[in-house]
């Protein structure tokens, strides 16, 4: 995986309080990295230094692709904006000094990617927090972006909006973006993040989960008529739970290898199965986070 940015020996003090102490960190292409740490540990400061918004007292920032375009989404989502998404993005782009036609094309592309076509003429003051958060990401991507930096993107979002955002981040990653974010929510950590950076004692502890070595699996939940048998399919999946919802219906929760998923679903549908949920999961990651949060609980 290619490095796009390197921070070396970064030190930052606010008055006499040490926030970051000789910290070093690398950011890789097409990777979602989460910065985890307690309140006041310096997560936001590190993000701002990475984005070039705050100057480090000491240390070097080396950009390995030129020009490296960085988009920044601050923690606070504006509560009241008297603009439609189109007006808002046009204003922000014009303030940036972007060419009008280029800006229009870019907005069109972003609206399509973020699926906001039906809301393009609605005032943003009527938007939900999740939609406003999408707008915040869009404004950060007005120019072609290589690295997207998000400060607490899930803060205050309901589970549905969190899931939408998570999917969106994965889509952006697939399009080639690197993403660096801070978060507390375990949900996002489990499903989207490739790499976790713990900020502790003014230092970063890198807990890279190499995507190359992790086997990708899906969680499949389906309901099957009790009269149907599916023993012949057991070799393709690992049953986690089997519950009789009614005497006629059994609900099954299973884990399936990513490559085997399509075939298995096809065979299940023949047996009049109703598919309830299909989620990508990462067993190694789950084990890692379970360990991490267990460790946190022990500390408490």
């Amino acid at each position, binding site marked *: 995986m290619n490095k796009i940015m390197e921070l070396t020996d970064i030190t930052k003090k606010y008055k006499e309080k040490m926030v970051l102490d000789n910290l070093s960190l690398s950011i890789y292409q097409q990777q979602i990295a989460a910065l985890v740490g307690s309140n006041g540990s310096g997560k936001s400061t590190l993000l*701002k230094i990475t984005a070039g*918004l*705050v*100057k480090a007292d000491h240390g070097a920032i080396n950009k390995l692709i030129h020009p490296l375009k960085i988009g*920044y989404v*601050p923690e*606070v*989502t*504006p*509560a*009241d*904006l*008297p*603009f439609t998404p189109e*007006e808002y993005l046009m*204003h*922000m*782009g*014009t*303030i*940036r*000094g972007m060419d009008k036609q280029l800006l229009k094309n870019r907005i069109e592309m972003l609206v399509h990617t973020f699926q906001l076509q039906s809301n393009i003429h609605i005032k943003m003051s009527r938007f939900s927090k999740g939609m406003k958060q999408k707008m*915040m990401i869009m*404004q950060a991507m007005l120019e072609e972006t290589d690295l997207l930096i998000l400060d607490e993107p899930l803060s205050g979002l309901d589970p549905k909006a969190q899931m939408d955002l998570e999917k969106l981040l994965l889509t952006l990653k697939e399009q080639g973006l690197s993403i660096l974010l801070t978060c507390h929510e375990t949900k996002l950590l489990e499903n989207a993040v490739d790499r976790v950076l713990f900020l502790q004692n003014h230092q970063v502890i890198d807990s890279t989960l190499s995507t190359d070595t992790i086997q990708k699996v899906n969680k499949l939940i389906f309901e099957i008529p009790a009269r149907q048998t599916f023993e012949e399919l057991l070799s393709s999946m690992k049953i986690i739970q089997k519950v009789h919802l009614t005497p006629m219906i059994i609900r099954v929760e299973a884990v399936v290898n990513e490559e085997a998923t399509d075939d298995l679903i096809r065979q299940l549908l023949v047996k009049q199965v109703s598919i309830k949920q299909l989620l990508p999961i990462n067993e190694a990651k789950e084990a890692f986070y379970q360990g991490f949060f267990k460790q946190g609980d022990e500390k408490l």
Partner: protein
Amino acid sequence: MKGLLHYQFISYLRSYQYVPPLSLFIILLIVNYTYTPNPILDSYSFTSLMLFFIMGWFTVTIFHVEDPGQKQITLLHSQSLSKYYVSLYLLAALIGLFLSIVAVASPIAFGAFGVKTRILHVLLGVLSHFSLAFLSIGLSAVFTRDIVKKRINTWWGVLSVLVISLSLVAFKASFLQVKGLIWLVPPVYLPLEMMASDDSLPFIPEVFYWRFGFVFLYGIFFIAIFLLIIKRKSNFH
């Protein structure tokens, strides 16, 4: 800068926060010119002072109109702290200029003066209104949220500095006795002194332009102080 100014203007327009000070300004203008005829320069002197106070109100609402979260984003896109705040000052100054023109033109349009107005009256009127409006913007902005954290202190600060500036006009004579001190107080007295001239003034003395210039300079001095404090407080670079 044009894009930033346009954005700030639309934000302010759609916030409707200009409605109370603008309404007060219009009401006071109407009340002032209810009975006719009126002296020209004296009337302009009063409405200039009125604008001096009302402009404080406009300035605070202009500097506070943007959502604090959005302000961070706008700052990022503008890529310059000075550019961002200069756009706010420009918007306030343009509103001040517009209101100055309204305050000078409306009594002429409605025939509220007893004698025929000359270019000299119009020029002195606009200069007097706009110089005091500009001074008010400079003084008031120092008490806005980027420097004064509590909103209540903003209003107290703005009101106090404007009232004190005006009350110093009365003490001007005693200040003059202490050489040099007069240059330190906000020069509200200068436009008022000049506007105390008779309506039959044959031409504008050259010294008047220098005095108006000094009022603008005083406003610019406070703007520079504001920008210096903001740059010191901010981590933005």
